[in-house]
């Protein structure tokens, strides 16, 4: 299994970085944390833009930094998308795209790659434009295409959406999700926006003050009671489901998730395909029994694992799906009053009523993923 191995331990300016991790070289790994936690510094160290003496870094066994060895940035097979798009003002869009390609030894003429990627990123009509004539979102899409056209072995993205306004953000997110589904290279995605993590990441590296606080699969991390995700007012559960069948009569697809099944509107693709679902905690309610008929389709047996205080007036109940609580984690947002009147306690069996589960973009997860809970959750 190919991996990115990184060990950075030392002082960069007045900032101390102390991380040691290995990530599989596939999918999107979010470097997540508050501003000033060292995310960008870490990404710059991986790109070789900042040199941290004594660090060790290798991709697929190729050493980029070790001891005195330090591969300069322009010799590392990376693509880098900066916060500011950083398009060259003296070149038009097409020449910006080919700048990196030519230097990376990718032929610009006899490849359809440029055309295909331009199509995917929605910039085909902009190729002959001057950079100053583009909107913020268009510039960032060009910058992403420019990085990808070099066929990098690792894509580094430093808060690519943070410099954009909300409209431009919403415009570009679908493109990123599209990319995520098609890219075969690993992506390190720096962000402090939880929603971007939920929509794009496969894994999370959680940083705080230059230290690695936790790391793991997205579904597992979002549900960990010791991390800030699960106790957020607008917490979500992300889980992968396998398409079992499609009911033509009602237009509903049935998905197998860990510990049960879910019925979701619309056709989700052929049987056996894995899809990622996003369930907002506020879309999950709890019931003692299934005695009363309900318009809610998905009512799953679950076991209460933990009751978490949130930053708001409600509480987040961390459940595990299944009669014995053997399945995926699920978060439900309930009021303090309900918790008291229903006398909800950890260990109690309950029914989770899921009002809505939205698909994450056009996301098809490349691999079946197991949501094994970490020991922390069992404590």
């Amino acid at each position, binding site marked *: 299994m190919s991996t990115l191995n990184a060990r950075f331990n030392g002082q960069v300016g007045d900032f101390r970085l102390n991380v040691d991790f290995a990530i599989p070289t596939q999918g999107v790994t979010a470097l997540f944390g508050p501003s000033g936690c060292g995310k960008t510094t870490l990404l710059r160290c991986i790109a070789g833009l900042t040199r941290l003496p004594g660090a060790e870094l290798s991709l697929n066994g190729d050493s980029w930094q070790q001891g005195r060895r330090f591969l300069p*940035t322009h*010799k590392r097979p990376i693509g880098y998308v900066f916060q500011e798009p*950083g398009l060259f003002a*003296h070149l038009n869009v097409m020449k910006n795209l080919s700048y*990196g390609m030519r*230097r990376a030894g990718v032929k610009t003429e006899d490849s359809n790659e440029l055309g295909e990627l331009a199509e995917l990123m929605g910039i085909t009509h902009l190729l002959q434009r001057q950079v*100053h004539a583009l909107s913020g979102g268009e510039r960032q899409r060009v910058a992403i295409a420019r990085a990808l056209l070099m066929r990098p072995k690792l894509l580094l993205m430093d808060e690519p959406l943070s410099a954009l306004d909300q409209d431009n953000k919403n415009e570009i997110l679908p493109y990123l999700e599209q990319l995520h589904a098609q890219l075969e290279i690993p992506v390190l995605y720096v962000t402090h926006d939880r929603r971007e993590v939920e929509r794009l990441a496969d894994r999370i590296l959680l940083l705080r003050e230059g230290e690695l606080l936790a790391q793991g699969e997205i579904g597992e991390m979002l549900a960990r009671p010791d991390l800030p995700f699960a106790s957020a007012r607008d917490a979500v559960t992300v889980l992968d489901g396998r398409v079992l069948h499609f009911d033509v009569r009602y237009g509903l697809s049935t998905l197998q998730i860990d510990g049960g099944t879910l019925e979701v509107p619309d056709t989700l693709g052929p049987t056996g395909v894995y899809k990622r679902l996003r369930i907002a905690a506020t879309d999950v309610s709890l019931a003692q029994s299934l005695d009363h008929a309900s318009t809610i389709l998905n009512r799953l047996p679950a076991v209460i694992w933990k009751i978490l205080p949130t930053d708001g007036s409600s509480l987040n109940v961390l459940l595990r799906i299944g009669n014995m609580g053997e399945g995926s984690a699920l978060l439900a947002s309930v009021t303090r009053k309900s918790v008291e009147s229903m006398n909800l306690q950890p260990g109690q069996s309950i029914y989770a009523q899921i009002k809505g589960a939205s698909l994450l973009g056009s996301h098809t997860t490349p691999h079946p993923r197991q949501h094994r809970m970490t020991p922390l959750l069992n404590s």
Partner: protein
Amino acid sequence: MTEAILLTLKLAGLTTLILLLVGTPLAWWLARNRTWWKEIINALVALPLVLPPTVLGFYLLLVMSPQSALGGFLKQTFGITLPFTFEGLVVGSVIYSLPFVVQPIRNAFEAIGSAPMEVAATLRASPLDRFLTVALPLARPGFLSGAVLGFAHTVGEFGVVLMIGGNLPGETKVLSIAIYDHVESLEWSQAHILSGGMLAGSFLLIFAMMLIEKRWGRLHR
């Protein structure tokens, strides 16, 4: 009269060319380096801005004279004598006009910042490659200003020329000296022709520069 005009253009053109070649790396170094003593170099480069040209000419004359260490060395090794020659004027002009070329280029390099260079590095461009394909094109307005100012300033120099060049027709008698000569000899009409020509030429030069800058500004912002 034409002799003086051609000599002046030759001197200014050659000086500007040398200054662009020497000034560019110097400007880059000044824009990028972070050592404390860079400010000393910076002050030395800027010195001709405030120094009376006659003072500069006086010291240049001393250093260039065959009796001095440097002048003697040049004379013995290469057979070059600098005082009262065209070559000497070129050396003097290069020093005198240095800040007028280096400062605009340095400002342009500083305005680019480190971001485009880092972007180029992530696009596999080597340091020299990124200098040539990113820094130079983006600093174009600075080069234009530097070249125009350096050229014009050399055309207009008087004090330094008088000190180290004298007044040898075809060798060191440039326009400004020629005008001075005509005025001294009360040849007003010749002085008018040359001065008026300089006025018109200078205006056209600056005007053209501004038009080009405006056009580039439209393209790049």
